[in-house]
């Protein structure tokens, strides 16, 4: 096949059937903010463009049995205008506000940002600290993948050819209100990040009860910093602990040099970003 084709299914069932038949010949598209540049640069060869942007049942933000559930084709603008996200899930709201620019946010979807699996995927970082789980479907049924297990490498995911993300869910915990997110880019808007961080921190009598740290653009995949988290747990907060944790962060990240920043700078600034988020949430 050497020509692109296009199809605009009306139901989720229809998408899954087409995926079953076409497998890797199909390319799911929604916002297209990544796909069209890939087509232009011939990174994507001629395929069937399977447009899921018209599937209403995949566009929602809702609460369900103690979880917050977000449909795969929910746009970044939808997240920003959602009262639930703004009031109950601050870390995701902050990342959505820093995402690209308003016109791209009107098109780009949360499912697309994750499936693209860029090490700089801005939605992945808050969702990693929220312990998000992806609901993934195919004609063979539904399965769940922890977001921390989803990214296998740059642009590589645990999705099979016939599967798609249908929903992203995480526990609607009161602690989610207190997370903090920082995106460091070369400019404020439309920047691919130099480094990003999301932190959720729960304290009990000046001791770290729970901590979740995720960073973007500092490793081949969006990364949860489990080693630094383990180091911090149950420890009493003081300046010495913070200094040690900053060093742990710098040990745990695994950045590369590229046109935006050097490896050395990224490693250094990872510690700085951690310090800023930690101080923000402890002061």
């Amino acid at each position, binding site marked *: 096949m050497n020509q*692109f084709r296009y199809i605009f299914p009306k139901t989720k069932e229809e998408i899954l059937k087409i995926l079953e038949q076409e497998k890797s010949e199909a390319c799911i598209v929604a916002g297209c903010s990544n796909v069209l540049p890939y087509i232009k640069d011939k990174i994507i060869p*001629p395929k069937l463009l399977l*447009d899921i942007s018209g599937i209403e049942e995949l566009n929602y933000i809702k609460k369900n049995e103690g979880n917050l559930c977000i449909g795969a084709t929910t746009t970044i603008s939808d997240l920003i205008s959602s009262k639930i996200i703004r009031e109950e899930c601050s870390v995701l709201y902050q990342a959505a506000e820093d995402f*690209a620019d308003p016109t*791209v946010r009107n098109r780009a979807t949360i499912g697309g940002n994750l499936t693209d699996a860029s090490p700089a995927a801005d939605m992945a970082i808050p969702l990693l600290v929220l312990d998000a789980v992806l609901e993934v479907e195919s004609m063979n049924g539904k399965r769940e993948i922890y977001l921390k297990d989803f990214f296998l490498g740059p642009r590589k995911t645990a999705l099979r050819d016939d599967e798609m993300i249908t929903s992203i869910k995480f526990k609607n915990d009161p602690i989610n209100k207190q997370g903090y997110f920082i995106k460091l880019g070369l400019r404020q*808007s439309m920047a691919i990040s130099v480094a990003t961080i999301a932190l959720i921190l729960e304290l009990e009598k000046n001791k770290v009860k729970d901590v979740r740290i995720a960073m973007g653009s500092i490793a081949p995949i969006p990364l949860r910093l489990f080693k630094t988290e383990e180091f911090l747990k149950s420890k009493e907060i003081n300046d010495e602990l913070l200094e040690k944790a900053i060093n742990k962060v710098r040990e745990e990240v695994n950045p590369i040099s590229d046109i935006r920043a050097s490896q050395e700078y990224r490693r250094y600034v990872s510690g700085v970003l951690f310090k800023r988020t930690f101080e923000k949430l402890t002061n």
Partner: protein
Amino acid sequence: MEGYPIELTINGEKICAKAQPEQSLLKFLRENGFTEVKCGCEKGDCGTCTVIMNRKAIKSCITLAMQANGKEILTAKGLEKQALGRKLQESFVKYGAIQCGFCTPGMLMAAKAYLDENPEPNKGEIRNAISGNLCRCTGYKKIVEAIYDVAEENYRVEGDINV
């Protein structure tokens, strides 16, 4: 070349034409005579191809033409049919918010969509609203002032075409 027939409304007029499956909305619009939509980076960075689709500002270079099927599109040429659009055009002229002019169609569309939703923004909010639109003459100050002037008047007129 074969293509898929699509039907959409552009600046209030129904258009039926064929689109290629992988064609961007930008290319489709320009090939059908809407050359006021400018082609810049073609990867979603510069914003000069910004149009309004169903009331939202979008970058037409990173939208498939097929995805505009059944939608309502407003381009810079359609602004003159609208009170707010005309006001923005006049304000850009008054403030000298145009140097080479290449970013202007995109700037106007981003500003129009934003003011429709937020009639009384401050200058910081305006800067944020046009943050996806690059001006390489770096005349941002005058562009922001031009948009702010329109916002200040809070110019709202009934009977705009509904895009």
